């Protein structure tokens, strides 16, 4: 082949190959960073030499949730702000074990020194009465987001790791925030949380076990953040329990400090834990009676979540109004 023709063909081949290589999608602009553990094992360091800008721009980096978020209590405001009523388990897929525990619960347990500074857990806090701050950790070299952080008024800092690290051993300590890792699905951030301490699904004694796991989906629509939180609990729930909650961006809002201090709220003998014995507490029907709802409905359970439950209870007009609270 003529040398000139060869050089032209080589140039054309190179030109066609470059875009094909550059346009190959990849989860990371730093190819070696796909396995940090492997990097450590090989003793390699990160280097800008490995960075590929075209790959970086095509990577699924999602959206930025950073900001100060104000809760909007346009759903379940009476439950979320003043607090739920005793015996209101409507629409929650609890089992009998959860029901029994809830019906032995006394609100005054919150006055125990051990309970006074207890924060809401990662699964409940979205529904709590609190502003929210979200910020991010950025790798100084790659400038990729390595973690998200969410903090509310009375909560610990929730860290959501984005660097692909595994969840710890099942025997690792459980915390209020649990251990969370995130992945992108388009612009939706999906978070898996394990290692939660025992908590509650409603602030009226409905328990959530430390075996529960949480899946969250964060969705940003303009200045509105919607979070779907799905709790799965093999101990107290018969089906996954989903709630979707909305926050509005408010750049003038600040999450205030909350230096909780334990005090003696009630003079009681050491070792006394407020409770009711199973079967001895009938105030749990008060809510049903006052609101004109069937007691069966207020006891909750998966059946009460679905529209067909209305066929069972018939068309009812509630008697509850805010003025009666």
């Amino acid at each position, binding site marked *: 082949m003529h040398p000139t023709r060869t050089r*032209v063909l080589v140039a054309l081949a190179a030109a*066609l190959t470059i875009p094909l290589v550059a346009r190959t999608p990849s989860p990371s602009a730093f190819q070696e960073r796909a396995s940090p553990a492997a990097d450590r094992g090989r003793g390699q360091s990160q280097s800008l030499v490995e960075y590929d800008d075209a790959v970086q721009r095509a990577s699924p980096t999602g959206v930025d949730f950073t900001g100060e978020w104000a809760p*909007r209590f346009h759903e379940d405001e009476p439950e979320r702000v003043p607090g739920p009523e005793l015996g209101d388990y409507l*629409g929650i897929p609890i089992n009998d074990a959860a029901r029994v525990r809830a019906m032995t619960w006394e609100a005054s347990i919150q006055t125990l020194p051990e309970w006074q500074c207890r924060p809401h857990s990662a699964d409940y806090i979205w529904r709590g009465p609190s502003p929210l701050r979200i910020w991010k950790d950025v790798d100084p070299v790659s400038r990729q987001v390595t973690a998200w952080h969410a903090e509310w008024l009375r909560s610990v800092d929730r860290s959501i790791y984005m660097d692909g690290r595994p969840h710890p051993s099942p025997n690792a300590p459980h915390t209020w925030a649990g251990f969370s890792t995130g992945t992108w699905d388009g*612009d939706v951030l999906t978070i898996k949380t394990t290692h939660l301490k025992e908590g509650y699904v409603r602030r009226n004694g409905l328990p959530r076990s430390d075996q529960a796991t949480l899946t969250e989906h964060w969705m940003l629509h303009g200045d*509105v953040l919607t979070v*779907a939180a799905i709790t799965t609990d093999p101990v107290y729930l018969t089906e996954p329990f989903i709630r979707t909650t909305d926050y509005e961006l408010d750049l003038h809002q600040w999450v205030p400090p909350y230096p909780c201090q334990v005090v003696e709220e009630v003079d009681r003998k050491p070792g006394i834990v407020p409770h009711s014995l199973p079967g001895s507490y009938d105030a749990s029907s008060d809510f049903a009676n006052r609101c004109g709802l069937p007691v069966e409905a207020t006891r909750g359970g998966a059946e009460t979540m679905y*529209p067909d439950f209305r066929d069972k209870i018939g068309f009812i007009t509630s008697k509850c*109004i805010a003025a009666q609270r």
Partner: protein
Amino acid sequence: MRRRTLSCTVGALALACGWFLAQSPVPSANQAPSSPAASAGQGRGQRGQQPPQSPRAIAPRDFTGYWVSVVTEDWRWRMVTPAKGDYDSVPLNAAGRRQADTWDPQRDETAGEACRAYAAPAIMRVPGRIHVTWDDDMTLRIDTEAGTQTRLFRFGARRTEASASAPTWQGDSVAAWELSGRGGGMFGGAAPKPSGGLKVVTTRIRPGYLRKNGVPFGADTLLTEYFNVLGPEDNGDRWLVVTTIVQDPQFLNTRFFTSTHFKKLSDGSTWHPTACRAS
């Protein structure tokens, strides 16, 4: 010399073309830069001579199928008819409260206004199944079991003929796929691509109720909704989440936010449409 110059020129031009191609976005089945949705005021950074693809063809997620609402929130206001005067959680103004306090379901039933609580700002909150289908390549359709209502989400420009007609319970809905990023930038960032969500803006809604017990919305209500399909979860569940923002200068103090979730059903065997009820 001439031959070397020629080969160098060809090589340089070829490399330049290669670099230019490398800057264009990665094509995928979910992406159509010259889509009608993009051309409806959102298209930027578009290149290529491809014919426009329909919104249906570029749908980033499958929204179709049967879905059932899972009522884990606002149970007292959704699964039963709330009491007259119970407008907890709704940012009603004084005029709205006065209007709500006049609620008379018997009057609505007699006047043929039983569907007031099934209008667009409220219908996704009414417990029941919904059936999502493509009416045509440009129109996503939602049929509701509760109240037997039909919503039509039209991609692209608003229908001019509809604007001249009387307001309806479901109003005029304009849809667009949400886009990820704005493209451009100092180093020519990637072109925007569908992020997975659907935005729907609805106007010209016949005045009705946000809740069954007469909590009102007015004639100038603007309804903005965002639809996201989530999952599959670890147990196989798929969810449809609808974020609803109601703006009503007549009866609301602020924007009214709710988000409603539906679980995907395998089929329509439990589909059972029912008529509107005023109480």
